[in-house]
C-alpha cells in the first residue's frame, strides 16, 4: 500500500503554489483599486495577515495532532454539528474550485486562444485534476517537486527582465490617503489565499521536529512573490494600467523587452500560472474528497471523483459569467464569505478546543 506521507519540502511547494494560485494574476488590480499607489504596502499587510492565519492553523493542528480540518471540526463541535460545518467547508471548496476553473478558462480564452471554446480548456484542466485525484496526494506531491523549479525560474525571469523598465516615480505619493485604504485592501486580499486548505495535508507531513516550518515558509515565500508582482505592476505599468487591467501580471509579461531581442515571452510565462493553478485545483479536489470521506464515513472516495468533476464544471460555467459579475462578487462578497471559513471558524474551533481541554483537566483534578 502506498505510504500517504509527504515530506516538508513537498508541503512547502504546496503552500507556495496554493498561495500564488491564480491570485498572482488578479491581485494587483484589486489592490490598486483600493490602495492606489500604496498597493505594495497593502500587499505587505496581506503577507502579515496570512502569516498570522498560518500560525492559527498550525496552533489548531498541534492542538489536535494527526487530524485533518474535518476531523478537528467533528472533534470540537460534535458529530452532527461538525458534519454540518464540514459540509459548509466542502461547499466552499467546491465553489472555489469551479470559480478558479472558470477564471483560468476565461484568462486563456481572452488572452491567448480567443477562438477556442472556454469549455474545451476547462475540460482539459479538469481531466488533469481528475488524474491527480485518482493517483493520490503522494503523486501530486512528487509532480509538484518536478514542476516547482520551472515556476521559480520563470518567476525569476519575469522579475529580472522587468527591472530595467522600473519607473520609481510611479510609486509616489506614498500614503497620500493614510493607512485605512492600505489596511482595507490588505485585509481583503488576505482572504484570497485560502491557506486553510492545507490543514487537510498537514497531518500527512512526515513526523519530525519543525513540521510547522514549511507551512510558514511557504506562506511567506508565496506572499513575497505576490508582493513583487504587485510592486512591479505599480513600478512598470503605473497605477492606471494596473487598476484597469483584468490580468496585470500578464500585462507585465507582455511588457518584457530586453535589448529588443528577449520579447513577446508572455506565452512562456503563462506556464507559471498554469502550473500553480493545476496544483491549487488538485489540492482543492483532494480536500473535497477527504471532506466527503470524513463526513459520510466512507471506505474510499475514488468513486466520487467523476461526479465531483462534473459539478466543478457546471459551477465554472455558472460562476464566471462575465468579468463585471465576478468583479462585483470579489469586491463585495467573497472576502466576507472567505473570512468566515479562513478566520472565524478556525478561531472558534481553537477557542472551543482550548476551553474543553481546560474543563477536562479541571474535572480530572
Amino acid at each position, binding site marked *: 500500500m502506498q505510504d500517504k506521507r509527504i515530506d516538508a519540502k513537498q508541503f512547502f511547494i504546496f503552500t507556495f503554489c496554493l498561495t500564488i494560485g491564480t491570485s498572482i494574476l488578479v491581485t494587483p488590480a484589486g489592490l490598486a483599486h483600493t490602495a492606489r499607489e500604496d498597493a505594495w504596502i497593502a500587499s505587505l499587510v496581506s503577507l502579515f495577515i496570512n502569516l498570522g492565519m498560518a500560525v492559527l492553523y498550525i496552533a489548531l493542528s498541534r492542538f489536535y495532532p494527526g487530524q485533518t480540518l474535518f476531523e478537528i471540526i467533528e472533534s470540537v463541535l460534535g458529530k452532527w454539528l461538525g458534519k454540518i460545518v464540514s459540509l459548509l467547508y466542502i*461547499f466552499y471548496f467546491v465553489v472555489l474550485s*469551479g*470559480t478558479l476553473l472558470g477564471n483560468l478558462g476565461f484568462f486563456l480564452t481572452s488572452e491567448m486562444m480567443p477562438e477556442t471554446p472556454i469549455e474545451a480548456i476547462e475540460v482539459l484542466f479538469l481531466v488533469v485534476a481528475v488524474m491527480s485525484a485518482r493517483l493520490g496526494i503522494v503523486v501530486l506531491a512528487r509532480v509538484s517537486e518536478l514542476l516547482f523549479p520551472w515556476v521559480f525560474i520563470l518567476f525569476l525571469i519575469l522579475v529580472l527582465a522587468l527591472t530595467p523598465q522600473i519607473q520609481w516615480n510611479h510609486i509616489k505619493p506614498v500614503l497620500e490617503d493614510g493607512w485605512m485604504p492600505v489596511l482595507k485592501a490588505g485585509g481583503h486580499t488576505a482572504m484570497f489565499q485560502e491557506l486553510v486548505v492545507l490543514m487537510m495535508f498537514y497531518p500527512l507531513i512526515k513526523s519530525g521536529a519543525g513540521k510547522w516550518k514549511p507551512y510558514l515558509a511557504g506562506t511567506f515565500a508565496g506572499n513575497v512573490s505576490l508582493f513583487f508582482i504587485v510592486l512591479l505592476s505599480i513600478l512598470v505599468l503605473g497605477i492606471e494600467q494596473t487598476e484597469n487591467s483584468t490580468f496585470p501580471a500578464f500585462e507585465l509579461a507582455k511588457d518584457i523587452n530586453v535589448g529588443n531581442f528577449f520579447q513577446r515571452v508572455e506565452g512562456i510565462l503563462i506556464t507559471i500560472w498554469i502550473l500553480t493553478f493545476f496544483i491549487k485545483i488538485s489540492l482543492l479536489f483532494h480536500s473535497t474528497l477527504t471532506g466527503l470521506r470524513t463526513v*459520510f464515513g466512507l471506505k474510499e472516495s475514488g468513486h466520487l471523483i467523476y461526479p465531483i468533476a462534473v459539478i466543478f464544471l457546471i*459551477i465554472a460555467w455558472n*460562476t464566471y459569467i462575465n468579468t463585471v459579475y465576478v468583479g462585483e462578487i470579489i469586491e*463585495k462578497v467573497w472576502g466576507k*464569505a472567505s473570512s468566515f471559513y479562513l478566520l472565524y471558524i478556525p478561531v472558534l474551533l481553537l477557542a472551543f478546543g482550548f476551553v474543553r481541554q481546560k474543563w477536562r483537566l479541571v474535572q480530572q483534578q
Partner: protein
Amino acid sequence: MNKEIGLMLFLAAVLVLELPRILKLRSPRDMFAFILLWGLAVAAVIAHWLDWPYLRPLDWVKAVIGLVTG
C-alpha cells in the same frame, strides 16, 4: 446543448462503471454518497441545460452574506 448531452452520457457511463465497484465494497455509506453526488451532478447538468436562473452559487453566497451583514 451538445455539451450537456456529452456530460449526461459521461455520467451514465460513470454510473455503469462505478456501481459494480461500489457493490463489491459492501458499504451502504459509499453507495449512498455516490448516488447522492451522482444525482447532484445530473441535477446540475439538467438545470444548466434548462438555463435555470438560480444555478449561480456565487449569488447564493451573496444572498447569505447580505442576510448576515444586513
